[in-house]
């Protein structure tokens, strides 16, 4: 079954590993403050292991891009490793690795996130590096030229050249007509190629500013000393006084089913339904997430038992809402077994969804769902780096990092009736995009 597992991993990998559905039963203690320049800071102390995570989340993602400059936010993530006024090209990562640390970054539709985990005696280095990036990163033509090519190879490797790799791109393009969620983070390579160097500088000046970011320090720290060091490195970074662009675009309801077929270099058909659903952290989001688990998580889940085991129609199934901070979609999909027509598979998926709409789920099955979420939430946030990420996300999206301690109670507040209600309200044919991925002939 190695193959199957790999396939699933591939697929999930496309959606950015960014599911802030984690928190501990024991509260995560943290403190926060805001510098005069607007930089918000969250400190979380845990001295169990002598490491520290230094992370910055900028409130800029692909949804902040111009329609003719898609892929910019993600391109910046690459550019931000090139160097700064005081750090020569290529040396940024070297400083971190020389200190025995590790670093990376990722970009979603909503935000861009940079993080390093260092031995705790290197905290100051981490602060220096992130402050350099925020104050005066070098946005120069050598770096731009190199990263333009790298990003194009990334697009090929991660999307175009990978079976089903374009699925999110194809789905979002059909699910949205107005909202920038219609394009994905990788964007159109031609937009990046066409961009002139000054445009990159302008993007940097607008979004990479302290009043558009949150700094999280988590791990083996002493709070007061840390605060002093933060003042030292970030205190003098100028705030942006001009307006920072915030998209305010409401996508109208879909109103009618969108249905399409993609012929790609794949071997087995895939049926995907994308239902338009509410944003992360809304009441309905929690219910929808539980509905997704009911359908597709665990071998006793409904899709798994019916489509995979009993009817042998599907090879692999999945259902989950995208964890975005504006209304987006919940994806539900199934890979067809050999010789199974996609419409037969889709019909079987629809029957299962219909059941949830028509019948209240049994008490016992509902208890199972609650247990599954309890397990996941208590087990999440076990690492320093995960906690830093979740604190940053809740602050950036909702201005409230304490949401990290409220997840379990929010899921536990969902009722069986809620799950049936969201199935009825959102899992409707006129509220979905249906895509078939079929082998090219």
């Amino acid at each position, binding site marked *: 079954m190695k193959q199957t597992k790999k396939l699933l991993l591939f697929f999930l990998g496309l959606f950015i590993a960014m599911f802030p559905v984690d928190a501990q039963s024991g509260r995560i203690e943290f403190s926060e403050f805001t510098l005069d320049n607007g930089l918000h800071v969250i400190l979380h102390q845990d001295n169990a292991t002598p490491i520290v995570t230094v992370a910055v989340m900028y409130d800029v993602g692909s949804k902040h891009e111009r329609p003719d400059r898609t892929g910019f936010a993600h391109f910046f993530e690459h550019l931000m490793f090139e160097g700064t006024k005081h750090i020569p090209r290529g040396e940024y990562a070297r400083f971190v690795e020389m*200190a025995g640390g590790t670093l990376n970054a990722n970009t979603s539709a909503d935000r861009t996130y940079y993080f390093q985990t260092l031995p705790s005696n290197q905290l*100051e280095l981490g602060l220096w590096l992130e402050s350099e990036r925020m104050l005066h990163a070098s946005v120069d033509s050598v770096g731009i030229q190199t990263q333009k090519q790298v990003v*194009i190879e990334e697009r090929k490797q991660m999307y175009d050249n990978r079976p089903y790799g374009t699925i999110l791109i194809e789905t979002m393009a059909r699910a949205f007509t107005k909202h920038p969620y219609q394009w994905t983070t990788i964007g159109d390579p031609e937009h990046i190629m066409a961009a002139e160097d000054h445009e990159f500088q302008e993007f940097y000046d607008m979004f990479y500013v302290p009043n558009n970011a949150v700094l999280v320090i988590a791990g083996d720290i002493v709070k007061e000393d840390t605060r002093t060091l933060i003042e030292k490195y970030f205190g003098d970074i100028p705030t942006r006084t001009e307006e920072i662009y915030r998209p305010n675009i409401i996508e109208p309801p879909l109103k009618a089913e969108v249905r399409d077929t993609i012929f790609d270099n794949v071997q087995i058909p895939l049926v995907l339904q994308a239902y338009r659903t509410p944003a992360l952290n809304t009441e309905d989001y929690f219910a929808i997430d539980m509905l997704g688990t009911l359908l597709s998580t665990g*071998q006793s889940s409904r899709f798994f038992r019916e489509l995979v085991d009993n009817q042998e129609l599907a090879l692999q199934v999945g259902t989950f809402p995208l964890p975005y901070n504006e209304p987006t979609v919940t994806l539900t999909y199934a*890979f067809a077994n050999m010789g199974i027509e996609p419409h037969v598979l889709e019909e079987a998926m629809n029957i299962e969804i219909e059941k949830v709409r028509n019948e209240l789920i049994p008490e016992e099955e509902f208890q199972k769902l609650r247990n599954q979420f309890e397990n996941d939430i208590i087990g999440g946030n*076990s690492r320093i780096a995960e906690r830093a990420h979740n604190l940053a996300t809740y602050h950036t999206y909702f201005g409230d990092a304490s949401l990290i301690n409220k997840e379990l109670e929010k899921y536990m507040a969902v009722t069986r009736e809620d799950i049936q209600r969201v199935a009825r309200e959102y899992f409707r044919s006129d509220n979905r995009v249906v895509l078939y991925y079929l082998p090219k002939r």
Partner: protein
Amino acid sequence: MKKIILSILTICFTTGLLAQLDRSIPPSAGPAPQINIGEYKKFKLSNGLQVFVVEDNRLPFVAYSLNLEIDPIVEGDAVGYISLSGSLMRSGTANRTKGEIDEAIDFIGATFNTFSDGMYARSLKKHSETLLEIMSDVVMNPSFPQEELDRSILRMRSALQANKSDAGSIAANVANVLRFGKNDPYGELVSEETLENITVDLLKDYHKTYFRPNVGYLVIVGDISLKEAKKQAKKYFGKWKKGDVPTHQYDDPAKYEQPKVAIANREGANQSTINVTHTVNLTPGHPDAIKASLMNQILGGGSFNARLFQNLREDKAFTYGAYSRLSTDKRIGHFTASTEVRTSVTDSAVYEILHEMTRMRKELVSEEELDLMKNVLTGSFSRSLEDPQTVARFALNIERYNLPSDYYRTYLEKVAAVTPQDIKAMANKYLHPDHVIILAVGEADKIREPLSKFSPTGEVVQYDFYGDVVTGPREVTDVNAVEVIERYLEAIGGHDAVNAVEDVKMHASFTIQGMQLNMITQQKAPNKMLVETLMGGNVVTKQVFDGENGLIVSPMGEQRLEGEMLEEMKKASALFAEQALLKPDAEIELVGVENVEGMEAFRINVLSNGENTKSLYYSVETGLKLREVSTGMQGTVISVFIDYKEVNGVKFPSVMRQTAGPQTFDITIDSIEVNTGIDDEVFAL
């Protein structure tokens, strides 16, 4: 008072810092923190199961992982049954159906996976007993229901189908076949055919034979005391019966004498997936292991500053990433450098990878670069300690691989002690750019030619998903199979000259892994043959066929040939095999024209009962035979015929290049004598 002074001092200190902040100087590190490796405890049950316990109360979870020490096993014509035996263990027991197990596991929100060499289970502590109840039942009483096997096989078929369009899967398959050979436990591949042969009995046998506590380690990690762990281990695994578990040993696959260049096609690829790889003998915990891992870290470990990443991505912008891996293994591991690049720079990327490998071998790494990578390794070691599973893994490795008990406690000291000379020595010992397999999966027609320069012979062999050689024929309509054979016989001298040959005696020599061997072949019309292989003047092996019966004599003993092998020998013994192909009962077909050794060649398939047994390639230009690919009892053998020379009016090749499995060697014909009047006695059995 003291307090006030202190706070004044603090203020001065702080503002002083602000005023003085010179951003151009990177801050220095504070005193290095103490790195503590957590404790573990161990005990053993009377059935031989060894148990390790790591207590960590930070979260209310307990994880149980069972690891069995089982040697690799050849699966033969049923490849896949071992992994299915593992995954299907949880699909029903004597006491529970699959549905009941799934329901119970999901109900407590637990994780439970089974593998061919163990299982992993984790849940909240409050559900531990329920979880262990199931785990214990699954370990001891799996039932392997037929319908669950059927379902899994159907899914595996679909997954196989899916993987055929995935460049990474194609590359993994071909690389395994080329590294280890198709009959090695590491080179065997799951296919539609092998899935056909998997039965419930195979799964049951595997479980019964190998799932025994006396080869097992149970690792318990989490919110649990030693006392609780002892009680649970005894209660749930104490009744598990021990048994003799067979061990298996295998020869190492042969090394390549020279770089082997291979490609595979992926429809619609817009990138090439490159693997530069070879086998490596490096066992876990070997005294070289840390030094060698540091060497690989410098070359292409996962850091931003590794040479492959810097060269191929940051300098050349060929790719999104480039990495190398040096895997340790109890039997045989491998080195693999891999990257995905745009098609047009496939050859340049290979060049850079080989260049970096060579540079590691030739140049001393600078102290600075070495320090950097030591720090990378040290940092990653320290970070890994955040996870209590790490301590458990250390304990397990110490036990499994017989490491000194302080192996991990002194790990960082060992890293710190590595010198640039060590790194160079490791590169020379474990990187072999002259014996690599260079594999690229992508647009075959665009990368074939550019890659040929890396092969000393210019040969680029194309493989399919299953690691079988691919030859793409072009259709021809103006000639037929018989005419191609006639042209060949004409080209080597014509029917009359060929018919005039009564016997042939041929002296040849070749080298395998540094050993010089001689071969004397004597053949007499119509099909008597004697082939003797000599080493240092002594006969090592002998194959003889007297026209009816055959015999093979080797250091392993004598074997009289029967059945299929005898049939093969009979065909191989014909003085001019092509003559037999012109007989009315011969089954031959002209497949088309293909490219062989840079020349156009007609491909003729020789069939037996409708199955292709042999493919023969004849030059379109000269009519001469260029290549023969035969699949028989010994796997696929490829022979290439080079440089024909005339003896008594008949042309014979003067070099035959043979490839069998990963091995290629040139058989050089030193002399050929025709019609010397060989006595029939020579061919007596």
